[in-house]
């Protein structure tokens, strides 16, 4: 912090705030860090002092076909959920941006509602509903349920970007001879692209990590978080730490990518033909 030479700042307060931030992050990340450290520890049980450095647990999960199956399901579901949620979120956000209509507040409230429903309730409801229409217990049911959870995130992210757009930009494109579809392709999408990619990565990350809903509806096509629970119920194994570290790094990579895109200058490479 280089604010010490700033006339209008109190040094003591600066240090206190700094300490507060460090403590808050330590509280949040300590368990994850512990899991990370123990995933490289040769001991069977997590205890201090640590044993030797070892990649055994990673080797163990790499050899486990069940983990591979879970990872494949997770990835398959996550990618599709990301694409579908982002497409839906874009449509919903653009509708909000472009049109004025009665009941718009209700439309917005409903569109942003799903993440506020407790996941247990949502998972249960999804299971009941999807089994009624014979769609439960497979990857498709996980995809459908995750899209319900993820699309509102995508909408919120893309809506924020659209709100930063000069309201004259779209009519300016029309005025220069672009039809509504051409304007969508050559102006709205390029302008929104950082948010579209951001939404894609974030929704993928949410789908990778989501457990409760997947647990209800996945049936035999368990995603990785559901598999992890299975492991935990059988035995306490440091393999969990290894899987946790792996999933954490994957999710963080996606979120960081999204964050870079969303906070960048918003400049995307020009649309070349």
């Amino acid at each position, binding site marked *: 912090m280089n604010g010490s030479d700033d006339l209008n700042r109190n040094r003591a307060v600066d240090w206190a705030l700094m300490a507060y931030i460090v403590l808050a992050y330590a509280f949040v990340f300590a368990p994850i860090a512990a899991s990370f450290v123990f995933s490289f520890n040769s001991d069977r049980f997590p205890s201090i002092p640590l044993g030797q450095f070892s990649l055994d647990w990673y080797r163990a999960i790499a050899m486990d076909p069940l983990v591979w199956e879970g990872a494949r399901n997770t990835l398959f579901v996550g990618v599709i959920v990301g694409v579908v949620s982002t497409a839906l979120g874009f449509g919903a956000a653009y509708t909000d941006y472009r049109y004025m209509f009665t009941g718009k507040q209700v439309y917005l409230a409903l569109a942003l509602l799903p993440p506020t429903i407790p996941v247990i309730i949502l998972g249960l409801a999804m299971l009941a509903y999807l089994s009624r229409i014979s769609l439960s217990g497979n990857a498709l049911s996980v995809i459908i349920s995750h899209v319900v959870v993820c699309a509102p995130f995508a909408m919120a992210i893309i809506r924020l970007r659209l709100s930063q757009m000069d309201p*004259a930009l779209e009519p300016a494109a*029309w005025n220069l001879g672009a039809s509504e579809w051409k304007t969508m392709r050559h102006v709205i999408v390029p302008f929104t692209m950082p948010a579209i990619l951001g939404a894609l990565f974030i929704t993928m990350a949410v789908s990778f990590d989501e457990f409760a809903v997947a647990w209800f509806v996945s049936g035999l096509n368990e995603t990785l978080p559901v598999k992890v629970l299975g492991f935990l119920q059988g035995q306490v194994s440091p393999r969990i730490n290894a899987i946790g570290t792996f999933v954490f790094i994957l999710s963080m990579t996606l979120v960081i990518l999204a964050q870079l895109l969303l906070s960048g200058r918003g400049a995307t490479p*020009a649309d070349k*033909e």
Partner: protein
Amino acid sequence: MSRDTLVSFEGVVKRFGNFLAVQKLDFEIRKGEFLAIMGSSGCGKTTTLRMLAGLEAPSEGVIRLAGKPINDLPTWSRDTPMVWQSLALFPFLNVRENVEFALKMRGVGKVERRRRAEQWLDRMQITEFAERNISQLSGGQRQRVALARSLVVEPEILLLDEPLSALDAALKVRMQSVLKNLQRETGITFVYVTHSQSEAFSMADRVVIMSRGKIEQIGTPQEIYRTPRSRFVAEFLGSSNIFQGTLERGDRGGIVLDTPLGKFETGGPAVVQPGSAATMTVLDTKTHLATERPSGTRNVFSARMVGEEFVGATATIYLEAPGGQEIRVQKGHDELAGLPLEIGRELFIHWDPSDGHVIAQA
């Protein structure tokens, strides 16, 4: 409709819900002219421009472009490019791609597109910035990009919606001459919406003054300045002293306006009914000051000086007439040199009868 008419508004009305934005617009835009539409905010000037651009549909009436009704033509099928107040340049495209945009949307091939964009980049003197991002340009450079982007399709008409309002004063003046020259050289009809009198009067061939969705006056800057057609226009321009009274036939042939400040002669023809109420305007530059009551004129009264404002080469003297009316006199510094200009001093206001302009409807 004459041969040199490019655009005509025929009984055009625009409503937004219950709000009447534009009422009964009937006027023509001539081929190749620089027309300014001026008025305060909410007067309907931007709505008029947007209807011409096809961004708003008229509620009633017909707009014709080159004789053909264009009411139902979407904006992308009209050749009515607009320069926006915010400029609305595409931030994700560089300068060249912005300029090529309209050609690309019209399906012009890559080589041809590039050649035509190059011409306009050159003409607007922004070739050296062609590969830059919009965010790297100054305000004046952005203006030029916006102009090139609109003019690259070589339209018959260019619409401008207060494009200079974000610039500082010096750059504004420079861009005014760029715009005026560009219009003269290309012969493209410019329709320029502004709230600024100095912009409208310095560039336009004709000025339309709008208020509350109606046209108050159309004319050359000279006509509007010298002979405002209504009290509103005179007050809006703010460069005249305005007197209210009743008309009488003068004993020396002209007409006389009987006002609370005295009976004032005007040289104008007696086009009006004696006894009717009327307004007279006298430009502040044609109003003179004296320390002694001038002889040989009836157009004189005394007023007390209340203030002085320095305006570059001239100064404006503010006085208060009996009854509280504010009087403005604008003069060069040398003309004011001999006068005892002190606050509170009584001075005589006088003017030549031929400088009084009578507006029939009070």
